[in-house]
């Protein structure tokens, strides 16, 4: 029943991951990484892991991204790859 959403989101997750890695700006990486976390959260919600989804929502969306932005803020946005 849920496999269709699951598959779609999984593909989405992989696209997000690739994008986060190949984008040539660290802030963009941080932002895309946030999107990746959203997708992961959804994926886990679909798979019935509510607690994990909750954690991922709070961590990935709330804290990780902010940390990333903070770190980029204190370092640089430049990246060669």
């Amino acid at each position, binding site marked *: 029943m849920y496999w269709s959403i699951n598959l779609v989101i999984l593909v*989405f997750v992989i696209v997000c991951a690739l994008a986060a890695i190949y984008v040539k700006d660290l802030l*963009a990486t941080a*932002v895309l990484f946030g999107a990746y976390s*959203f997708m992961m959260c959804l994926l886990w919600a679909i798979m019935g892991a509510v607690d994990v*989804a909750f954690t991922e929502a709070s961590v990935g969306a709330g804290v990780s991204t902010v940390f990333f*932005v903070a770190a980029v803020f204190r370092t640089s946005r430049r990246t060669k790859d």
Partner: protein
Amino acid sequence: MNTFFLCISLGLCFLMFVSFYRCLMGPTILDRLIGVNAIGSKTVVLLLLIGFLYERVDMFVDIALAYGFLNFVAVIAASRYFHKRKGLYEGSFKGETKEVS
């Protein structure tokens, strides 16, 4: 009804894909940020829909709520970056600076 919810969910997934195009291609980071923000608001709904699919929406509401808050935090943080970094001297020192040694 569940089938309907499923269809709506898949539709939202599709919309997320489309929004993600902006994330992927956005010429500036702020465009990406818009994309992420759009994805975020769809995700909130999607979480609720999944809750209905599982017939346990009371459990999923919490996640959606947290999501709403925290997406906001992330976006604010990312945009604050530009407030500080690019406009370093535009808005920060209003008026003249006096040197006192």
